[in-house]
């Protein structure tokens, strides 16, 4: 069986913005049913790598295989793949004109083609899962940042994705709201979801990740299980980074 089935595999990914090479020959396996955390200083290319996993950014070179499908091949129906790869953003990006319920139910109706009643039923169940019972009729702007991010997580989970991508999901939250969102992510990791998580939350990476990736200047510097990576950093660059953030 292809080792990338159910997971994500990046092979020799290169991506530049102008003259800056943000991803420089990245090869990485994100195994299924495991949480992979990417850490590194800002500008190291970690968010760009994550955004390549559903082709929000298209690499100039290399192959990306998602759940057994080579998405970088020409002619691949990327919409169908995206519907199976959930993504949560730093700034939530909820649909401002829709209620909380419709935010979650919209793609179920338009992409999954579920009837409205069924879509809403599933949306309500997902909102319950993230602790937002009773807020279905509210507008996103009436919610706290933490609640908005939980709506965004419910919106992604409602599509029953095979893989979840988190792009600094707690970085825009007030400190007291971070905990609730991390708890949901932790539960999700524990439930066996395949997750690729770009984060500054070192404690989360240590506790929830199966492997941690340290990136700097568009390259992967170290890949290891969290205990090894945090307690026995091999490279001076990682040592220096950990000294700064821990």
């Amino acid at each position, binding site marked *: 069986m292809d080792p990338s089935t159910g997971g994500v595999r990046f092979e020799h990914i290169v991506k530049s913005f102008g003259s800056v090479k943000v991803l420089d020959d990245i090869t990485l396996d994100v195994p299924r049913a495991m949480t992979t955390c990417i850490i590194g200083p800002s500008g190291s290319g970690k968010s760009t790598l994550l955004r390549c996993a*559903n082709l*929000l950014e298209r690499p100039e070179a290399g192959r990306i295989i998602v759940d057994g499908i080579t998405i970088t091949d020409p002619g691949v129906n990327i*919409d*169908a793949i*995206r*519907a*199976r*790869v*959930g*993504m949560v*953003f730093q*700034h939530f*990006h*909820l*649909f*401002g*004109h829709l209620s909380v319920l419709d935010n979650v139910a*919209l*793609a179920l109706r*338009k*992409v999954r083609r579920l009837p409205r009643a069924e879509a809403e039923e599933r949306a309500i169940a997902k909102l319950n899962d993230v602790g937002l019972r009773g807020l279905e009729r509210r*507008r996103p*702007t*009436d919610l706290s940042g933490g609640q908005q991010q939980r709506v*965004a997580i419910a*919106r*992604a989970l409602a*599509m029953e994705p095979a893989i979840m991508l988190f792009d600094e999901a707690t970085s825009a939250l007030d400190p007291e709201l971070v905990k609730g969102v991390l708890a949901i992510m932790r539960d999700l990791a524990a439930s066996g979801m395949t997750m690729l998580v770009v984060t500054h939350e070192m404690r989360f990476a240590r506790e929830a990740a199966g492997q941690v990736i340290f990136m700097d200047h568009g390259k992967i510097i170290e890949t290891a299980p969290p205990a090894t990576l945090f307690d026995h950093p091999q490279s001076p660059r990682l040592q220096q980074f950990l000294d700064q953030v821990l």
Partner: protein
Amino acid sequence: MLKGLLRIQQTFFDLHLILRVMPSLLRVGLPNTFILALLATLIGIVIGLIIAIGLISSRRPLSLLCRFYVDILRGLPHILTIYLIGQGLPLAGLSLFGDDTYAYAALAIGLIEGAYMAEIFRAGLQSVERGQIEAARTLGMSRAQTMLFIVIPQGIRRVLPPLTGQFILVIKGTALVFLLGLTASQRDLFSIAQDSAINNANLSPLTAAGLIYLALTVPMTYAVNAWERRLRLGANPRARTAL
């Protein structure tokens, strides 16, 4: 001095003439002007939205074509476009509406308004945050679905006040259709006033029409301003939960 003032009063404010022309202004001119403005606006909205989507398209030939349309129709004097379409189409054998001048007038103004509204819509569509578009795409929605369900509903909502402002301009713009020679029952406010002014060799009927235009446009302008203020305050979450 007094004689001069009296002449001005007689030329522009002849009460007797104003009262005489008022009934036909209100009964015929006002509905015709209003319906014409409404029709032209509807045509303008449909064309404007299509052109706006073309303007922001990543397909270069399409966006250039739409840019061309906007530049031409905003660059020409309205009077010239109305002549070209209202007189030109029937002359060229494109008698879409037979000899119904009113319909050509609505089409001509609608095409012009489409160009102005395209720019208003474009600003609205582009004001929708890129992140929401990315979120929709990551959920598997196609470009078209994202446009239809995410961008257009929010983009239009944000430009409703300037769009209404544009409607006020259309009301004034309809005055130009007198050029096309409307039948008696089709005449708008300005045509009726102008005919009456010529027949009586006195400008007071135009003053009467002016009063009606002002009665339409000034309250609407204030209403739009108040609406815009409220939309801005609506960004305050406390104001919204109170609803």
